[in-house]
């Protein structure tokens, strides 16, 4: 029977390995042909031009910008919600709030995108100018999308803090809020940080919602109402018609994205092992 468990465990490892091999076999030659520096540092993406340009620098920046925006919106709301759920929330309300935040995770991303397109994009167009499809719109929607991850992970981190910390602070005369923010939250620092890193991973990899609402211009936005194109959006938009080097360049874009996610996973592991060391 153990053999069966072993095989199922191998299946996921095999999937990761096959994806890695596929990405690198197809992506690396394209990068070499374009020139690694021209590919990663190039600001011009024009695959149909002759000669073609394949520079993804603007999209790397765009991915970072959108993720940063999502973090600015999602992290404070998420952490404060987790604090409320873990320490302040009355039981009957918790029974409603908790499943509600979990439900947020179950909504398909295309629905988020559609919601953004029908509600947030016109709102930005009417109130902030521009055409609505923008950095701001993408960041708002992604900020909402990462909420369940951040709330879930930070709430369990907050709950893992020994009750004696809180009671000790109360005994010293601190108010309830002060006890939570000065003892429990700092004590669960690494868990909360892990939640933020997971949120970053989710925001960076999101595709369908972003492609609908970000405008997809290959440019570095100078205002929040300007559009941008993320790495993921570039792949999904152009894969359909691409051939030859263009297609390989899109796979190479996937390699860059993969490296980003790898870095996030590694930092996640680092945070985890540090928190284990510190107890």
């Amino acid at each position, binding site marked *: 029977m153990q053999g069966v468990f072993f095989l199922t465990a191998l299946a996921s490892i095999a999937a990761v390995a096959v994806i890695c091999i596929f990405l690198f076999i197809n992506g690396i030659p394209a990068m070499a042909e374009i020139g690694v520096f021209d590919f990663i540092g190039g600001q011009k*993406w*024009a*695959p*149909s*031009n*002759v*000669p073609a340009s394949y520079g993804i620098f603007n999209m790397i920046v765009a991915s970072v910008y959108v993720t940063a925006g999502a973090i600015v919106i999602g992290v404070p709301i998420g952490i404060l919600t987790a604090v409320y759920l873990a320490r302040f929330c009355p039981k009957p309300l918790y*029974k*409603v709030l*908790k*499943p*509600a935040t979990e*439900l947020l995770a179950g909504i398909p991303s295309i629905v988020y995108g559609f*919601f953004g*397109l*029908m*509600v947030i*994009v*016109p709102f930005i*167009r009417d109130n902030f100018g521009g*055409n*609505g*499809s923008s950095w701001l719109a993408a960041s708002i929607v992604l900020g909402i999308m990462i909420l369940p991850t951040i709330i879930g992970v930070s709430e369990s981190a907050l709950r893992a803090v020994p009750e004696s910390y809180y009671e000790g602070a109360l005994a010293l005369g601190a108010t309830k809020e002060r006890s939570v923010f000065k003892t429990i939250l700092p004590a669960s620092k690494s868990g909360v940080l892990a939640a933020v890193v997971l949120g970053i991973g989710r925001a960076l990899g999101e595709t369908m919602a972003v*492609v*609908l609402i970000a*405008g*997809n*211009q*290959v*440019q570095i936005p100078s205002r929040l109402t*300007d*559009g941008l*194109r993320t790495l993921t959006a570039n792949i*999904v*938009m*152009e894969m*359909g*018609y*691409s*051939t030859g080097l*263009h297609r390989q360049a899109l796979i190479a874009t996937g390699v860059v994205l993969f490296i980003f996610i790898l870095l996030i996973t590694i930092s996640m592991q680092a945070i985890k092992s540090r928190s284990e060391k510190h107890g």
Partner: protein
Amino acid sequence: MKKVLAKITAITVMSALAVTAFAGCGSSSNSNDSSDASFDTSKTITVVTREEGSGTRDAFTELTGVLVKDGDTKTDNTVSSAVTINSTEAVITNVKDNDSAIGYISLGSLNETVKAVKVGSVEATAENVKSGDYAISRPFNIAYKSNLSEVAQDFVDFILSSDGQKIVTDEGYVTVSDGEAYSGKKPEGKISVAGSSSVSPVMEKLAEAYMAVNTNAKIEIQTSDSSAGMQAAMEGTCDIGMASRELKDEELSALTSTTIAKDGIAIIVNKANTCDDLTVDQIKAIYTGETTVWSDIIK
């Protein structure tokens, strides 16, 4: 039991929230409709384009001169602030919802939710594309040498028959002949077709349909570009060449050409937009970023 009840309550609350959210969205779009009566021409034009590699984008940029060819180099000068969208439906949605937007779609996909502007005072209709009056259109030509094999001739007959032209319509293009139903002798053989990547999607559908009718035939399609297709047909390395443009004189002297379909591109704006007529130069100026506000066009 209690837990289940709590979950049900939560879900009900959430769906109630969702319903109100959508209702809110519905009413706000209604209020947009009512304000449509006065179109604000001082607004910046939202330029909507398709993604790189899309056949519609290729045709549009080529026909309007947004794509500049200089010897061996080709440069697409579409303004970098253009909203880029990867489907015809989404282009329509964007233009429908944004009263300062302009976009382009294949004529076959045009619907009532947006307004197609006249180009050089010619309306974007299938008839005008067929007659050649509508400027942003191009022919899909096939060309072959006089010694065409029996099976290749039969395939050409199939394309021009009502069966073949129905496929052309289904693919969103304009038909060119009102032929009768296909009634070939189904000869055996192999046909090689080469050329334009714009023509090859519809050619693939035609070949598929022909091979279903005439199981004795085998068709191979190689995709490159119009000039390479004509070259291959002249050299005899393929039976039929495909071109998404009119043939040049030296090609016409060696080949017989037939138009199998026409591709028209509709320029669409929001229904509230008071602009009905644009010249090709104005469209080019909008897409290259020279013209940025509607008041430069609507006087």
